């Protein structure tokens, strides 16, 4: 009898990338919940690296009061601030993503998914304020501090700079939050579990260090940023193949921001490449499912269909366009795209799902 280890290697299905992607697409569709119902999620970190912020969307204006007590998500594209009536002021840098989870007299809980935010919290007896960032929780006791979370879920690079007062930090582990909490005092910074004095980070006036802005971190990071051991650089690659592979790796590692940039760059620099349609499809999918950027997802998926896709991806792309237009409230476009889907795929697997969309 042949050993089992020998036998199993000869009995395996044919698995192409297209088939695996199609499988995932069906799984994701089946298990996805509408974004507006998504519960507050604390992004569990897998590493501790300093993270860079993105812009803040202008949907929240200065001194706006965030409606409570529902969980809500905001993506900010410009620098902006929010002031809660509980005596908490939050200033976001560009393209931060955050969620307000719990809001009660005894607990305010906010998650910074990605970005840079300055928190100014007035101490109140009997009330806890907890800020969650990838991989950790920061409990505030009345203070001013900055949390920097670079590159969406990018094995996270999270840094906490305490400008006034102190915070307690617990890291996320498989067994839950670490105990005891690490106390970080005024004038010190915390990154990867190590506290250091704030030599070149945030000034006393709260002006951010130039090395920590989105403009300087990333492909064109400044030398200061690259010298910071906590800062991660994305080194640009030259070839289409390298760009494509790096984007794929970034996506699978949860670095959605990096993946988006790399895919955009591929589309810009290699528009005639045979993978251009697939790249546009992946970009659209990333923006739709992870970055929650409906308008730009529509652009990418429309581009993908124009460039041409294999049948497995074409059906998926067309169905996603229907859902995106439904999500954006553009009923006429939704109806148009749904008609296109039904004409092209009358027995497609999305027929029943999109049939309920595009209601007037």
């Amino acid at each position, binding site marked *: 009898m042949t050993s089992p280890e020998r*036998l*199993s290697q000869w009995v395996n*299905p044919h698995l192409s990338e297209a088939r695996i992607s199609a499988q995932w697409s069906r799984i994701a569709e089946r*298990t996805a919940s509408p974004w507006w119902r998504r519960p507050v999620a604390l992004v569990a970190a897998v*590493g501790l690296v300093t993270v860079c912020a993105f812009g803040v969307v202008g949907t929240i204006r200065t001194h706006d009061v965030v409606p409570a007590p529902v969980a809500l998500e905001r993506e900010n594209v410009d620098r902006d601030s929010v002031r809660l009536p509980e005596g908490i002021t939050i200033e976001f840098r560009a393209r931060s993503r955050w969620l307000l989870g719990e809001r009660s007299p005894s607990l305010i809980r906010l998650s910074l998914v990605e970005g840079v935010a300055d928190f100014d919290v007035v101490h109140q007896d009997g009330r806890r304020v907890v800020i969650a960032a990838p991989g950790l929780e920061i409990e505030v006791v009345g203070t001013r501090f900055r949390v920097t979370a670079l590159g969406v879920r990018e094995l996270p690079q999270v840094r906490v700079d305490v400008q006034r007062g*102190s915070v307690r930090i617990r890291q996320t582990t498989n067994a839950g939050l670490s105990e005891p909490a690490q106390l970080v005092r005024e004038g010190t910074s915390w990154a990867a579990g190590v506290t250091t004095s704030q030599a070149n980070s945030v000034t006393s006036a709260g002006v951010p260090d130039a090395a920590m802005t989105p403009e300087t971190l990333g492909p064109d990071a400044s030398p200061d940023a690259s010298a910071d051991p906590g800062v991660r650089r994305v080194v640009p690659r030259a070839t289409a193949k390298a760009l494509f592979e790096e984007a794929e790796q970034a996506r*699978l*590692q*949860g670095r959605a921001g990096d993946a988006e940039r790399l895919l955009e760059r591929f589309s810009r620099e290699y528009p005639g490449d045979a993978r251009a349609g697939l790249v546009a499809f992946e970009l659209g999918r990333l923006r739709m499912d992870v970055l929650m950027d409906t308008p730009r997802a529509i652009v990418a998926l429309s581009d993908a269909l124009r460039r041409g896709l294999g049948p497995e991806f074409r059906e998926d792309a067309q169905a996603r366009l229907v859902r995106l237009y439904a999500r954006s409230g553009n009923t006429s476009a939704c109806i148009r795209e749904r008609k296109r889907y039904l004409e092209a795929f009358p027995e497609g697997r999305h027929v029943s799902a999109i049939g309920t969309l595009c209601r007037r």
Partner: protein
Amino acid sequence: MSPGLAACARLKCVREPSSTSGSSAVPSDAALVVAARANEVWAKEALFRRHAGLVNGLAFRVMGRDEDLDDLVQDVFTEAWRSLGRLSDPQAFSSWISAIVVRTAHKILRRRRVMRALGLRGADPVDFDAVVSPSAPPDIQVELRSVYRLVEKLPPTTRVAFVLRRIDAMPLEDIASAIGVSLATVKRRIAGAEKLLLQSAEGQGMRDAVGGVEEDSAVHPCGASLASPLRGIGEGGRP
């Protein structure tokens, strides 16, 4: 400094136990599970892609058909996301999801058997040419074909146990746990199937075992037959 602050306490840094400390900085299964539990889509996709080969391969070997694969894989991961909170050891995601594959495939096979018994479904023959790699050595081809020829005739529990043991080398305890039967039952079923396989290889032409074999009864060595008894195959498996 705000009032109420304690004096500087003893600081303790607890690092995330993961494989990310290496140069590749790839998240561990445990880390991905933690993120997936927080409903992070990227983590779920990373888990799926990392284990797609394992899940597809195991499902393929148990079912013996490619036609069932996509739906089964979809069912497996849907169930996995739903019950991820019950995974006590996030680092053991691989073996955990393997058990889900086995349970799901077993359930499908049992359901189909009932439907066949009721005349609501035809046979699902194993396509040997599709299942066994054409590049397999001749002795392996013969052995695998004989295994799947037997597997076609076996009741679902015996079939699943036998394939997992014979082809995937899964530990008996894991097979028993995944299928939901006792270890003793698994051992008995596999022993019975092995005996059938040996007898068919020796060309003894046993009786058909499809009808009348209850799900929870032992497989009698003389109760099975093959459509075409193999000839010329000795114990070494070479023609």
